């Protein structure tokens, strides 16, 4: 996901740069009749507007179909393993520190003191899921760990002096 986001962003920013570069390179040779330029530019702008509306509209529909806030509809893998996670300055307290690979997990996240953020990092240290840990609220991550190894839970909301040390390990093994 992150790789795709990186490349899409670079391409789109390069397109914007191309547009500005084109205008800058062609800024000489003044045309006194600005209305003729406006007429052509407005046509182009209308096209650009509708292209963006269609692209963003399609992407909105596409990305809103699966939101991380809800448990997956496919329950074929069986009942979810429940894990309670509570953040403290500056440690995580987990009700369980291991789970079987490919078993759905329901991670209930809250905080005992200030705002924290629970980020799940896979064994390659890539962020695969997260939610905020807020006192008085419980946010639920539904996630299936599909790689064996040691995952890490990192704090992703600034919570004071040892924020960066708020890391705990989580084992994913064979069923």
């Amino acid at each position: 996901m992150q790789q795709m986001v990186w490349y899409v962003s670079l391409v789109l920013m390069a397109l914007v740069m191309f547009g500005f570069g084109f205008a800058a390179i062609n800024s000489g040779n003044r045309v006194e009749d600005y209305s003729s330029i406006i007429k052509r530019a407005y046509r182009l702008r209308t096209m650009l507007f509708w292209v963006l509306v269609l692209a963003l509209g399609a992407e909105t529909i596409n990305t809103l179909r699966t939101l991380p806030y809800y448990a997956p509809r496919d329950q074929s893998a069986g009942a979810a393993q429940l894990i309670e996670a509570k953040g403290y300055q500056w440690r995580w307290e987990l009700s369980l520190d291991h789970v079987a690979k490919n078993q759905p997990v329901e991670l209930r996240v809250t905080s005992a003191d200030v705002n924290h953020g629970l980020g799940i990092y896979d064994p390659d240290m890539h962020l695969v899921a997260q939610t905020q840990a807020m006192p008085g609220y419980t946010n639920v991550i539904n996630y299936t760990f599909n790689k064996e190894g040691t995952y890490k839970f990192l704090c992703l909301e600034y919570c004071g002096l040892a924020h960066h040390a708020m890391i705990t390990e989580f084992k994913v093994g064979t069923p």
Partner: protein
Amino acid sequence: MASYPNTPIPDKGAKVSVLTYLITAIYVLLLMMIFGLLLRLEHAQYFSMGEAWFYKIMTLHGVGMVGMAGIAGAAIMWHFLREYVDLSEGIFAINWALFLAGVILILGSVFFGNFAGAWTFLYPLPSHPMGTWFGGASPLFLGGLLLISIGFFLLYLDTARAIIARYGNLARALGWPQLFGPDDGKAPPPTVVASTMVTIVNLAALLMGTSILTMMLVNLFAPSFAIDPLLAKGMIYMFGHTFINSTIYMAVIAVYEILPRYTQRPWKSNKVFLASWTAATVMVMSVFPHHLLMDYAYPKWVLVLGQVLSYTSTLPIIVVTGFGAMMIVYRSGIRWDMCTRFLFVSLFGWSAGVIPAFIDGTISINYVMHNTLWVPGHFHIYLMLGMVSMLFGFMYYLGKPHQDAQDSCLDVAAFWGFTVGTIGFALSFLYGGKESVPRRWAVHIMPEWLPADRIASAFTVLIIACVLVFIVRFIIRMGPSGRDYTRASIAVAA
């Protein structure tokens, strides 16, 4: 269709109060850039100040940059808006005095009280220092922010008063009669439309900000007065996100005012322009939930709206303002100087910066990128290459010795150094986000994260060196900055 009178001759020089704002802004900017460099050097392991100092400096860097942008944006808006409405110099001066008082309190809270609660001061962190800052530090910090917020609130009350006195009401100043009825050619000029939008959104944001700051101050002294953390977070982001966003909408007034003078082409308040600013008024005030997408406890419709508004808010920026800059420059015969270079590149920075921003506003992407370095990556593009470039463009415009003055090679080289440096610096952040590097971490624990930190550090040194050139040039030209004379080089015919 209303046209902006694009060649007022002579161009007005800046009042002493505007120059005072600008000097304050560039001093804070330079200091905060140096602080930013220290943060990146710490990440890169080229320097070691320890986590206590890292988080103190991080707190100052964040709050200082927001304050700098607010002061700089207000200076630009006030300078041009006073050509159309009767603004109070007294209120403008009071805002500066309250800003200064607030800065002193904040510096005291950090340097003497060790406060390190970040500029977001998320409730209840200020009251949970775990022994790392003194009890009085949190009230000093929040009190300082409150003073600054009150100052800006007074400023926008005054702009609202002045705009209503001239145009009757805020809807007329947004050009609603021309937007929703026939275009009689009497729509207010872009500066008035933009200032009205900023006035509306910032009055709402600052009302929210002063409320939550007051509530948190009461909580510090009377802990039984508890606040819902979710409500507090929403109020803080409505305040902070809207305020920092509005600084670009203030600074872009320099583009609307100055580019037409150079190109001898009008920047028109037509229906599309008016529609985009009315849309921006609504969207800038309501897009902040895209920073709360990982707070699952929020009503889901609010979070979905956060994504949708994140997407739609790109349209006015790219399709209207960014495209408008390309259009006004194309085949204009514009004579490029430091002012026009900065103003033009600023709209590139703003338009390009919204791309990683709206992508991160996608809920399913935010799930794996929120609070990584992707976030500072996107906002450093549109704030540094966007808003700060508008500030530098305005400074070079004010200080230009005469209409046909040539820029020195040093200034031109510094412009390119700043532009390339900012792009490289911001891409280093975005790359860190791609690699899942957490944001606001004093220590970067993985060796794989260091190369991007080190590249970012090098780009930051380059940026600061270039910014020093712009600042020194502005200070040397302070004399001419206050005088009335024609500054814009006239576009040349083919």
